[in-house]
């Protein structure tokens, strides 16, 4: 099953023999490159035309915000009403969890109701965790919540939790509704896919300003931005899950005379529930990812703590608040998984038989609330007993900085001089027409004419909206980071696939890396590697590593044991097993992992702009700081297009490999 042989055999060759195409392409590229020195429009897209798209978009948003009216009310009234509607549940949660309420009793007197004290929530959540997930989950919950209390993160965590408790249901419900709609209509589904791609890849900074204009400044806007970012996986998963419902089941429903609505609620959704939960999990994780950016527009909470302490360079404080976000994310995620397992399990095997769960929780909260109300001193955890490990972390970074800097610096300089700088120069030198042409040809070989046109059009869009240079810097930065992240990630994935224990360790580390706000490690990275591309690269690698590890391990673990056995029987040595059997079979999953790694790397571009890079991420950030809506959106769409080009090509390639290996 050597690669080159099968390639020539299975390619959709059409008329032109494959080698001639590639030779011709190569010749064209060299020719273009040589011509580029003399013919301006080959090298410099701005000499062809620069479409003033940014201006048009700015005007359109202005029109939306100021002029669009539906007669009785304006568009802005509509969005503001929506914001008001969302604010109600948010206020309820914040009152309950964090601020408490003051009820006027007439005249001067009023009754101050404190928020639910920490021990009530601790009791209720640990009880719930025990019922759903047993001792392990109980320990996780208790440890996480005690961490929040003891490290003085409780109040901020409750503010963050309040907005998550609203954003997640909204994201899940909205995502499901869109998914169902797309399931029912092929046309909607086709129209929705590129929109979802954009929602996921356009950096949030790009549409922050229009969201602020339309929905007002504050926690609600932050929540809406969160929902836009976190909803797409839910839509995708819903579409996929509904399509996966077995035809027999649908047939049965029809025979039983289900109406359309009954079909949905009684047949489709229940049987798709396990898959839908994957979507819920993604919404939770992505919502918590947004906590930092949300805090820049008034959401407060843990995100603000992270930002403010890093601004003062208090690395330890930032880490403690960041870790609180991670713990919240992991806890909520594990709880939602346990809940589903609990729902699926037979009633007889459940814990706490005969106890009405919700009554129990209500009782626990009520009793402890009254205790807290009568003895108010109990409900605030004494400040003297809080722990603070931040001096340790600050000192650790200082020690590394003072003693290891010379070595780190040497590594950095070697990589910069021999890898990063040459690649950057090369990328900036390639004429835009050559890149567009190459992408077109690759697209054509992998997916036919349609794909070629789409891919080339996206590249041309980037060039003709005046973002070519910055886009190439982004491609260079992400490209190198993705290669490094993939190498590390696939290697780690290989180790993780060896044993259950190694797998668990890998999953937990990867979860932590993904939910720990990247700001937390950005500052130490800058301290050790200075401002520049190298620091940006490290930050991207750290963040984008996760999917490579996850998918590789997953792909390797699901290779059927018979296949491995067959390999061993035919006398493969371990080395051969790896290169000839395991890796090729896991290739589709690994490729998907790399695909996701690319997406993650691109989504880090805006964050690395905060270190100091001169790429599309910086362009988006500058646009945000100058409030030029159109500029930001165009640069954001360019980032998205880079991602989409990579995604389309990789997906097409994987589809072909799968066909070759006849894997379903």
């Amino acid at each position, binding site marked *: 099953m050597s690669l080159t042989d099968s390639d020539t055999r299975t390619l959709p060759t059409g008329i032109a023999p494959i080698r001639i195409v590639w030779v011709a392409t190569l010749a064209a590229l060299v020719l273009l490159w040589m011509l580029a020195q003399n013919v301006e429009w080959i090298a410099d897209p701005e000499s062809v035309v620069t479409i003033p798209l940014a201006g048009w978009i700015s005007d359109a948003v202005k029109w939306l915000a100021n002029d669009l009216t539906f007669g009785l009310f304006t568009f802005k009234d509509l969005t503001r009403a929506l914001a008001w509607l969302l604010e109600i549940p948010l206020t309820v949660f914040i009152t309950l969890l964090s601020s408490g309420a003051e009820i006027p009793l007439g005249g001067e007197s009023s009754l101050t109701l404190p928020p639910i004290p920490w021990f009530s929530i601790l009791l209720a959540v640990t009880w719930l965790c025990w019922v759903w997930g047993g001792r392990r989950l109980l320990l996780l919950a208790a440890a996480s919540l005690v961490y929040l209390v003891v490290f003085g993160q409780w109040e901020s965590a409750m503010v963050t939790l309040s907005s998550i408790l609203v954003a997640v249901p909204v994201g899940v419900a909205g995502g499901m509704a869109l998914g169902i709609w797309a399931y029912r209509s092929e046309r909607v589904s086709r129209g929705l896919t590129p929109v979802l791609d954009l929602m996921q890849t356009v950096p949030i900074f790009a549409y922050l300003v229009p969201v602020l204009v339309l929905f007002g*400044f504050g926690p609600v806007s932050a929540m809406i931005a969160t929902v836009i970012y976190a909803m797409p996986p839910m839509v995708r998963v819903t579409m996929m899950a509904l399509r996966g419902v077995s035809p027999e089941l649908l047939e049965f429903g029809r025979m039983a005379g289900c109406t359309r609505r009954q079909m949905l609620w009684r047949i489709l959704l229940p049987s798709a529930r396990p898959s839908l939960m994957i979507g819920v999990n993604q919404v939770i994780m992505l919502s918590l990812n947004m906590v930092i950016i949300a805090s820049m527009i008034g959401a407060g909470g843990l995100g603000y703590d992270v930002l403010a302490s890093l601004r003062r360079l208090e690395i330890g404080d930032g880490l403690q608040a960041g870790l609180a976000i991670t713990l919240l994310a992991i806890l909520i995620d594990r709880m939602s998984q346990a809940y589903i397992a609990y729902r699926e399990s037979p009633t007889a095997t459940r814990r706490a038989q005969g106890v009405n769960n919700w009554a129990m929780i209500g009782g626990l909260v009520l009793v402890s609330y009254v205790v807290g109300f009568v003895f108010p001193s109990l409900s605030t955890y004494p400040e003297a007993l809080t722990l603070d490990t931040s001096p340790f972390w600050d000192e650790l970074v200082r020690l590394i900085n003072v003693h290891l800097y010379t070595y780190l610096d040497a590594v950095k300089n070697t990589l910069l001089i021999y890898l990063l700088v040459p690649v950057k120069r090369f990328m900036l030198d390639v004429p835009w027409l050559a890149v567009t042409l190459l992408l077109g040809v690759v697209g054509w070989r992998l997916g036919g004419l349609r794909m070629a046109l789409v891919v080339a059009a996206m590249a041309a869009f980037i060039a003709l909206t005046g973002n070519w240079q910055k886009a190439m810097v982004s491609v260079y930065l992400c490209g190198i980071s993705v290669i490094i992240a993939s190498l590390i990630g696939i290697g780690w994935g290989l180790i993780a696939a060896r044993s259950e224990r190694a797998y668990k360790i890998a999953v937990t580390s990867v979860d932590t890396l993904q939910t720990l706000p990247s700001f937390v490690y950005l500052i130490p990275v800058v301290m050790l590697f200075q401002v520049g591309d190298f620091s940006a690269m490290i930050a991207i690698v750290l963040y984008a590593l996760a999917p490579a590890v996850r998918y590789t391990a997953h792909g390797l673990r699901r290779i059927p044991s018979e296949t491995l056995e067959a390999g061993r029987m035919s006398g493969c040595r371990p080395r051969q097993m790896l290169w000839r059997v395991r890796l090729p079979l896991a290739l589709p999953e690994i490729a998907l992992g790399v695909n996701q790694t690319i997406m993650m790397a691109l989504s880090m571009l805006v964050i690395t702009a905060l270190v100091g890079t001169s790429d599309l991420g910086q362009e988006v950030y*500058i646009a945000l700081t100058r*409030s030029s809506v159109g500029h930001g959106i165009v640069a954001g769409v360019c980032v998205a297009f880079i991602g989409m080009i990579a995604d389309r090509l990789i997906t097409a390639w994987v589809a072909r490999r799968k066909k070759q290996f006849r894997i379903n």
Partner: protein
Amino acid sequence: MPNSDRLKCTRSPLAASLAVLALAMPAVAQDYPESDRPIRMTINDWTGQELTTRLMGGVLEEMGYTVEYVQADYLAQFTGLESGDLTVGMEIWETTGKDALEAAVETGNVVALGETGMEAIEEWWYPTYVKEECPGLPDWEALNECAEMFASPMTSPNGRYLGGPVTWGGFDEERVEALGLDFDVVHAGTDAALMAEVRSAIQREEPIIAWVYAPHWAPIQYDGEWVEFPEYTDACYEDPSWGPNPDMTHDCGKPRGWIKPAAWAGGRDVWPAAYTAIENFTIDNEQMGRLIGQVDVDGMPIQAAVDQWLQENEDTWQSWIPQN
């Protein structure tokens, strides 16, 4: 509890006199608060700004207004100020926010409310120990002799000057060219990244030259000096013949800049007295520097520092309140 007693003593005559005034001419002296609507003040992510905001907020609360603090990004806040979702942002720096403020004022929905009295200083800055190896400093003409000391492999043989985020402007590339400095300008992406690198170099006692500004904790916490360039005048930025380089502009240091509060224009009709009080707000660099030092260096909680200042400077803040 001598302290709280003293506090009571100083406050009660004032309260009494206010009460008397209120009785005597209720229509005039108690014009404020004109509205129960909360005044929404933005908290940005640096200590000095939060101190300024809470000082002003404390005074407004004394005047009887309801104040809400909203955490907001420095530049994203303008969108909220234009729509009236936010009422006032206390610190817009000429050096970093001038364009954004001008754009906002142009819409007619935002007004600048006087000046805070603080002065933004920003310039090339180096830690004092650098002087041992480069004794010619702080004079700018010594920079070229020591350029190599600041070099990194990427900039060598030129020195590496760490500038602020591109959005801050500052004309450092122009300055380097006009003064013929052997330096490359590297832009940090944010204030935090900039300061992280400064701290890192100081921990290792290695040479660094970077954009530092005041009021800020860095020049309070670390021993250092500003480079002395030819002093800024408007002519320097406009007239090539001015300054050491007869053919180029920007052959001088950076201008000192104002720091202004910016507010939603519509608010003047809702809380006129509050707007006047904000216009009257004034504090100097030295006092603000001391406050920032208390919080960032000594670890005092912000509110405690604010309360203490309000207690000790009652005459000052009383004078901000309009007396009709």
